[in-house]
């Protein structure tokens, strides 16, 4: 969905100039976002879809011209006009006469302001601000009243609600609520969350709603149920587990009686992957109040227990990949992939001799700061025997995502490997003692991938034994590695912990050190 905002992005290095623009625009009812480097500007532009981008031609990290070319090719930002600021005139590749501007310093402020006003007044396109039917602030009118009014007038369109932290949309047709969505969350869960927002703005945009109705109840019943859940949550929240606390199952879930409620089955399954309460609630498909009530009930029946680990805090993501490294990685992605929607992520292909090892790897990754398990793995219908697809996502500074992506390491899978190779930035191989016979297949899979993509390959022994020199050499031989190519162990027996952070740190260093796009392929 295209987001319609009143925001102007100011990617200007000179603070005085940025403040000048911000003051002018704020006085005219436009909000501003400021960014002092190209990477931050790109992140904001993608997230907010501004109505205008004012930028310095010489921005740090990503230059203004490159940023322009990237955003111009992105369907979400392709229509956003750019205003370039520079000391002297320079030809900008792809400059669109009639849409973009170039202004040299010193500015004629009055003229500049006039031009901005003119471009923001144009009809059509993303920057048109006058095609909303209804808009206002939640502090003035409750959202339930707005929905009631739309229901009575049998309106069709999208009701978008924005707060400082999130944004959600309610889809209405003939006055009925067809669906609601906050990111990937939808239906009642999203609707009830949106209804609970008390601060922020809303706007209704008439548009054809093409998808079918995903909510069975009438508009009145949905609002009543939503308000009931919000009230009950407020009254009972002292009984619910805290959002940042962790949960653990106290009993073997296999021993629980058959015929449990679907919400209980889902919650018990999710606890395995999302032990932190807030993450669990976010990943459940059921409305928040129902999930909290179920959690409280399971804790009361001693099926779940809250784990208090005050000493154990997750390291910051900067410890795993420093900010400077994360920016360099992002730059590398940008140089490699020209289309904007794919420069924000890279796939780390994970091939293993057994699906058990892939699951062991995912479990170890949960200790990484910024790592989230893929919701599909946490779903009940996931078959771990067929390891294919996302295992999770590791978020680095600046919004870059590293996606561990399982691929099968059995014979005859080369066509599939080729089909999923887009955005591959690394390869991780896992094996253990039991899968020793499968190591040649693993090496074949690695060679196949490396013959098509020059990426760092990490070799990780995921067995339970301690690796000694002789064993390492044996594995090197089986994998066809050189005598000094490192082989990692996922677990350290004597330290009683996993080495996942070290493995990723080495991988990131290799990603930066090696010119893995045009340089030679090597193991790390």
């Amino acid at each position, binding site marked *: 969905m295209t987001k319609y905002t009143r925001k102007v992005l100011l990617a200007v290095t000179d603070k005085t100039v940025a403040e000048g623009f911000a003051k002018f625009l704020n006085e005219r009812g436009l909000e501003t976002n400021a960014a002092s480097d190209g990477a931050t500007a790109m992140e904001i532009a993608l997230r907010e879809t501004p109505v205008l981008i004012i930028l310095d031609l010489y921005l740090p990290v990503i230059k203004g011209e490159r940023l322009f070319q990237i955003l111009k090719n992105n369907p979400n930002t392709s229509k956003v006009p750019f205003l370039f600021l520079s000391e002297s005139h320079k030809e900008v590749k792809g400059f669109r006469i009639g849409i973009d501007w170039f202004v040299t310093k010193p500015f004629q402020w009055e003229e500049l302001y006039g031009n901005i006003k003119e471009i923001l007044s144009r009809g059509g396109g993303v920057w048109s601000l006058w095609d909303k039917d209804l808009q206002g602030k939640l502090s003035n009118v409750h959202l339930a009243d707005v929905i009631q009014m739309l229901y009575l007038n049998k309106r069709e369109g999208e009701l978008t609600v924005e707060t400082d932290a999130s944004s959600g949309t309610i889809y209405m047709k003939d006055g009925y609520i067809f669906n609601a969505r906050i990111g990937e969350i939808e239906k009642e869960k999203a609707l009830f969350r949106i209804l609970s927002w008390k601060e922020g703005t809303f706007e209704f945009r008439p548009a054809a709603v093409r998808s079918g109705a995903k909510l069975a109840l009438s508009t009145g019943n949905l609002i009543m149920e939503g308000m009931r859940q919000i009230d009950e949550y407020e009254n009972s929240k002292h009984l619910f587990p805290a959002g940042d606390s962790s949960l653990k199952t106290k009993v073997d879930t296999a021993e629980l009686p058959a015929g449990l409620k679907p919400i209980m089955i889902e919650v018990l399954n999710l606890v395995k992957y999302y032990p932190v309460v807030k993450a669990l609630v976010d990943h459940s498909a059921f409305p928040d109040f129902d999930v909290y009530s179920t959690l409280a009930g399971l804790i009361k029946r001693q099926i779940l227990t809250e784990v208090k680990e005050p000493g154990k805090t997750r390291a910051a993501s900067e410890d795993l990949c420093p900010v400077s490294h994360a920016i360099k990685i992002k730059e590398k992605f940008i140089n490699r992939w020209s*289309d904007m*929607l794919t420069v924000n992520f890279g796939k780390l292909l994970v091939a293993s001799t057994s699906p058990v090892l892939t699951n062991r790897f995912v479990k170890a990754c949960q200790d990484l700061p910024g790592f989230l398990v893929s919701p599909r793995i946490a779903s009940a219908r996931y078959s771990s025997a067929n390891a294919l697809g996302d295992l999770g996502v590791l978020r680095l500074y600046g919004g870059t995502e590293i996606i561990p992506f399982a691929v099968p390491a059995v014979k005859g899978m080369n066509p599939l490997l080729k089909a999923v190779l887009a955005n591959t930035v690394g390869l991780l191989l896992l094996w253990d003692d039991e899968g020793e016979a499968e190591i040649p297949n693993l090496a074949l899979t690695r060679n*196949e991938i490396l013959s098509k993509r020059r990426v760092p390959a990490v070799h990780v022994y995921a067995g339970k034994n301690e690796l000694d020199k002789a064993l390492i050499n044996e594995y090197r031989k089986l994998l066809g590695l050189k005598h000094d190519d490192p082989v990692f162990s996922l677990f350290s027996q004597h330290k009683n912990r996993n080495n996942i952070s070290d493995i990723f740190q080495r991988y990131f260093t290799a990603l930066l050190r090696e010119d893995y796009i045009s340089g030679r392929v090597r193991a790390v």
Partner: protein
Amino acid sequence: MHPCLYTPVTLETMDADIRKEEPESKKFSLLDESKKLSESHFHDPSFVTRYGRLETNRSERYGISYSIIVIHVESFNHGKTVPGKKELLDFLRKLVSTVLKVIRNCDVAGMLEDKRVIALLPHTDYFGSLIVIKKLSKALEFLTIGGEPYASIIFSQATYPKDANGFGELVGTAARRVTERLSSPWEKFDLKGKLFWEIVAALTGASYNLPEYSTFDTGPELELENSFIHAVNETIAREIARAPEKRGILYIGTKRLSGAVPFKKELSSLGKTSTKIFLVGAAGGGGEGQEGLDIRNVTTIHLTDHRIEGVYFTFFMNEDSSYALVARESWGDTHNCFHTSDPYVVEGIITKLQRDYSLQEQL
């Protein structure tokens, strides 16, 4: 492989024959014949090269793409007589006038080299050029020479800036693709001469283990579970979601159509996408019934053919990758599977499905 009805005569062997019989025609070639054409919009290689360079500069300046199509005359399926100069000139005249009819006024066509005609399509991306190839191949399908036999023509394309940095490199890429296409199983195993279901039977009935082309089996006790087939569809749906602006086409054959298709969640959570998605199956499936099939972005195709109930298939193409998977039901809940990432096979099999079931021919 089906035995050929005609003995293929390549232009090279034909040239050799002519040399033996007609020494005066030693210098004979299509390139020479092209000079005798009176088509005012058909250009010589030097003009095409100069125009190509200009188009490269224009595309770079405005940040747009353009494509070229190379039409390679591989051989004449001619058994009785060797085409003479007159027949070849006649063939070339028909070929060129057909090409000029199919392409737009703004496109430029000309001779690239002997036996190769080029069409330069300004402001056209990868998928746009594939559509022009489809139109050209249909228009040239029954092109005759000397009344009866027809020529074997290979099409290839390349897009600037995706495939090359300049016009010369672009032509090189298209030429390389001609060679790739000739060595592709689509041409090599004569798949193009078969019907859709004959292709399915041929591919799932034999054992292949080539880099872009192999077979495997799924089911209990086998290396991969049956759910692997659905995992492939889920993965492709997520690949589409990651780059929704990329043009592509996806056909998923799911035996019987029902609202309970396993990868429904992935398909329904797709936002606005430039990939056309089709769900194909026999009508009247169980599960949630037809209502559950109302999935955004997805068009359902109901086929009344019992053969569809015995196979799962996935055909996916976009500008970055192509993939086809066919899984034919075997006994004991197992499947014989074939998959490939060869773009020519994937494109060909999609065309066959569309033609054999009179679906809208699109890419």
